[in-house]
């Protein structure tokens, strides 16, 4: 037994300089780092989308060669999924989860630092493959074997390492969120009093923990197939490339929900605030989220209806997929019921939230169409699929992130954003995104395959319109960057409450939130 320490040092302010950001263990700093990283990756991935849309502006090969086009579609998907949407959601979680549950920080702050700082290296490694001999990965973000094994460029090994790093980062982030939510809630903050955003992230963290080892395993098998003579996915050596798809989609389908469940949480925070009503059906929202998470594990093969699976298998995966519509509909119903007869106002976050409900539902309905096995034979690998998942991930997940940023940025910076500019950003994005993606339903139904740099003349008009929408949407996001910088630099001072009917512990701390909050736990009644 030693003698008790007789002095304790406190340092309360934010340290300064570059080392603040490299060594920080503060959840707000790390949240900020995640959000900026995600935004940079969003712009890089967006630039790749511009290349894709420029090439598809007219039929014929115009700007890039087909291999580079395939590289662009692959890298665009990978960067947006692993570099932009997921880190942005983790950034929101880092900022908001401790504030919302009354915790002073994340449960494992050093691991939190590590989780973030793996990302830039993984991102740089992934992007650096573009400059390697043979070019970057060109097999689509789903990296199906044998395209990603037998026929892939040399840079694929770097892609594999980058995916491993991204996976480790995600796992550590997920472990941190689970440990934080379970151990660090303020007294009185029972599980069923937690804000919906915390709930959705809590469930998402379980999904991440369950599926990330599968991703790590599948890329490791790719690595050994490529370099060490194994034949997991090579029919010539007794393996099976179709089984790659099973393993990949066992990870890949929950991955979709990993990106969208936190978005549901964001929307469940924004709508009650601007409808000035309590969220309708709180507990049903929690159970619906958990149901969606569970169902996401048992529907993976609906991505593989055309691989020739038995009819019994098709029927099972078709009906299981349809079941997801039930808890999803519960959510849409509850959001609508929350707005019903509410004293609604339409500040920028609410505009994003309402458009999310409307446009995500379109994406959900087209998903339902694709879940019908017989008709999916027609839709499979067409632009209809591209339209569907962009409605889910752009007008769904990304719009929720935009809404979240406008909703919480006064708390982060201490300044109100420019409402007029925020609304311009919203309408500019909402109109252009529909010009971009809605026509892709038509060309997809007409039979245009995805991942092709050239196409038949019959698809020319809608492709041109889609490209124009794409350029406009891309430009709108540079405008968003301007709004963010303007808000950080100054603007009307934000109050503690920020929004008059917002509820939650984050609205009890000053704006901007002090570097250390809830050093002693608040009491929740």
């Amino acid at each position: 037994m030693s003698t008790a320490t007789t002095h304790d040092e406190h340092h309360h302010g934010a340290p300064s300089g570059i080392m603040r950001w490299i060594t920080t263990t503060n959840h707000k700093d790390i949240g900020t780092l995640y959000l900026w990283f995600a935004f940079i990756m969003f712009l890089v991935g967006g630039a790749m989308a511009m290349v894709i849309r420029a090439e598809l502006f007219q039929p014929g090969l115009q700007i890039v060669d087909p291999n580079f086009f395939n590289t662009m579609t692959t890298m665009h998907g990978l960067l947006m999924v692993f570099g932009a949407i997921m880190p942005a959601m983790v950034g929101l979680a880092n900022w908001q989860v401790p504030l919302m549950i009354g915790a002073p920080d994340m449960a494992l702050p050093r691991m939190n630092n590590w989780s973030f700082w793996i990302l830039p290296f993984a991102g740089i490694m992934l992007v650096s493959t573009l400059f390697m001999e043979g070019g970057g990965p060109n097999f689509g973000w789903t990296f199906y074997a044998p395209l990603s094994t037998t026929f892939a460029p040399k840079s694929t090994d770097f892609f594999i390492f980058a995916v491993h790093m991204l996976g480790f980062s995600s796992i550590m982030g997920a472990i941190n969120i689970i440990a934080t939510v379970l151990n660090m809630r303020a007294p009185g903050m029972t599980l069923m009093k937690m804000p919906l955003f915390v709930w959705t992230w809590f469930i998402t963290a379980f999904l991440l923990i369950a599926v990330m080892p599968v991703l790590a395993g599948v890329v490791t098998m790719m690595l050994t197939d490529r370099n060490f003579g194994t034949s997991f996915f090579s029919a010539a050596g007794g393996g099976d490339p179709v089984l790659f798809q099973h393993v990949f989609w066992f990870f890949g389908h929950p991955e979709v929900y990993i990106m969208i469940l936190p978005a549901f949480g964001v929307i469940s925070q924004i709508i009650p605030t601007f409808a000035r009503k309590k969220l309708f059906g709180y507990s049903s929202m929690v159970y619906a989220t958990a149901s969606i998470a569970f169902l996401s594990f048992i529907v993976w093969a609906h991505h593989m209806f055309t691989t020739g699976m038995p009819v019994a298998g098709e029927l099972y995966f078709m009906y299981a997929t349809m079941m997801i519509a039930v808890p999803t509909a519960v959510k849409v119903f509850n959001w609508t019921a929350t707005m019903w007869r509410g004293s609604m106002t339409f500040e920028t976050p609410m505009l994003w939230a309402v458009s999310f409900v409307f446009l995500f539902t379109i994406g959900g309905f087209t998903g339902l169409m694709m879940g019908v096995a017989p008709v999916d034979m027609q839709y499979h690998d067409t632009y209809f699929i591209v339209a569907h998942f962009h409605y889910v991930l752009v007008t769904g997940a990304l719009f929720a992130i935009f809404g979240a940023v406008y909703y919480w940025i006064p708390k982060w910076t201490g300044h109100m954003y420019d409402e007029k500019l925020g609304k311009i950003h919203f309408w500019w994005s909402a109109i252009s995104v529909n010009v971009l993606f809605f026509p892709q339903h038509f060309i997809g139904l007409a039979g245009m395959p995805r991942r092709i740099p050239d196409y038949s003349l019959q698809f020319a008009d809608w492709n041109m319109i889609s490209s124009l929408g794409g350029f406009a949407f891309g430009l709108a996001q540079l405008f968003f960057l301007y709004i963010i910088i303007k808000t950080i630099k100054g603007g009307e001072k934000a109050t503690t409450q920020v929004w008059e009917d917002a509820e939650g512990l984050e609205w009890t701390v000053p704006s901007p939130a002090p570097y250390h909050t809830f050093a002693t736990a608040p009491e929740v009644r």
Partner: protein
Amino acid sequence: MVDRVCDSSGSDCYWVIRPNCSLPWRGALKVYLVIAASCLGIGLAFAMHGFWPVLPFAGLEVVVLGAAFYLCVSRGQIREVVTVNADIVTVEKGRRQPLEHWECPRAWARVILEHSPIIWYPSRLAVAFQGQQVEIGRLLNEQERCELAEELKGAIRRNDWPR
């Protein structure tokens, strides 16, 4: 959180100070077992189909998760025990067993509660004797810390100790 325990005569008292921990270790163990079973189950299922490389990653993840839970739960078991009797004031800190020990004569002990000049930052509670002081109650919220300070001051200053 503070638990005050006194003997039947009310003369000897001790205060047990513990951190807020929203999940007891048994709960943490249950959650961990469920997650571990799910992850290893998925890994095993893939291994049985020939995709054994999933299993070591699942195992590694379960180990890291276990370490993270262990750290969190063990932090939740930190305790500070302050004992005041007729002669001495004792402060012990530790986890499961006292790891740090400090004591001073009651007659010379002082309770110091310093409020931070910055309104948002917590106050600092310490027991002092001559040039030394030991901080206690960092695990408490503001109200609990102030209440504890008052209780300790009362106990240390009282002059009706049975001899």
